[in-house]
């Protein structure tokens, strides 16, 4: 009985503290997330959410059409190693983890008017969204996120290099 009471107190304190901190913290998340890859990119629905749904391209065929139009720069948000092992043909590497180091060179090569499509490793990966967010902050206006990323592209047999 004593143990039940003690455990209840410890559990109660944990749950109250957890919910309170989550409510007030800017890094807090929703009580239920989006964990179904069929519905799009998975996300815990963080408050300062970086998943920008209206910028998403969730159709590989559409991405291919935009690729063929040559009007878009495909930007690879994955690590340099992943990029070197294979990437969408013509894509530029800008790993989101090294954004601060790489952005200056990128800015010199691609003006903010350039239309950009970011991608990473598919729907379990948020890096392409993070990269899109960062590029928006750097003044790029026309940005889309290809959510099926490299695996989706490769699976359809579209050109890689």
């Amino acid at each position, binding site marked *: 009985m004593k143990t039940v009471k003690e455990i209840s107190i410890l559990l109660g304190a*944990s749950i109250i503290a957890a919910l309170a901190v989550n409510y007030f913290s800017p890094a807090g998340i929703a009580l239920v997330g989006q964990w179904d890859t069929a519905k799009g990119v998975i996300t815990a629905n963080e408050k300062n959410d970086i998943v920008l749904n209206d910028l998403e391209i969730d159709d590989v065929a559409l991405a291919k059409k935009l690729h063929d139009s040559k009007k878009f720069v495909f930007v690879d948000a994955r690590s340099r190693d992943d990029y070197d092992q294979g990437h969408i043909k013509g894509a530029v590497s800008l790993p989101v*983890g090294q954004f601060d180091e790489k952005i200056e060179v990128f800015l010199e090569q691609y003006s903010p008017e350039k239309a950009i499509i970011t991608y990473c490793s598919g729907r379990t990966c948020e890096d392409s969204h993070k990269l899109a967010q960062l590029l928006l902050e750097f003044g790029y206006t026309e940005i889309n996120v290809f959510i099926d990323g490299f695996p989706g592209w490769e699976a359809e047999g579209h050109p890689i290099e």
Partner: protein
Amino acid sequence: MFLSTAFRDGKQKGIQLNKPIRTFFGNHWIELAARWILGVTFVYASYNKILAPAVFAKIIYGYDLFPAVFINLMAIIVPFLELVAGLALIIGFYPRSAALIVNAMLLVFITALSINLIRGHEFDCGCFSINSSGQKTFAGPLIFRDFLIFALGLHVFFYRNSRKLCIVS
């Protein structure tokens, strides 16, 4: 009569055999060491998860074991359970119950790790650090480590003598 004698003899024999071990485990400094190591481990483990619940949620998703509706709640609550139980062990607030909570969590971790080890599922354990680089985990050593920590929890739980530096035992 015969039974009780046999029982008593057996018990006495047991005490003699285990005396050094009993002295060791009955020592309040040993209990304090076990409690603090356990507490610090859990407080440390909670730190990064509390700072980045979204990343921890994704790690839980990566285990591919838990229903989608519970993933966020787990990501919100489990780190605080680790923090509160860890602090309770360190300051000696209900140490037996805190040890019980910690060991219940360890059993869940061990089960989750074992299932993924058996089915060969690659995942990021997210035990202490969390990073989004998609680090893969070897489950075997982790399960072993969790059992060692679990043993510390058992010691704190079954310890019967008076405890050192304890607020409410």
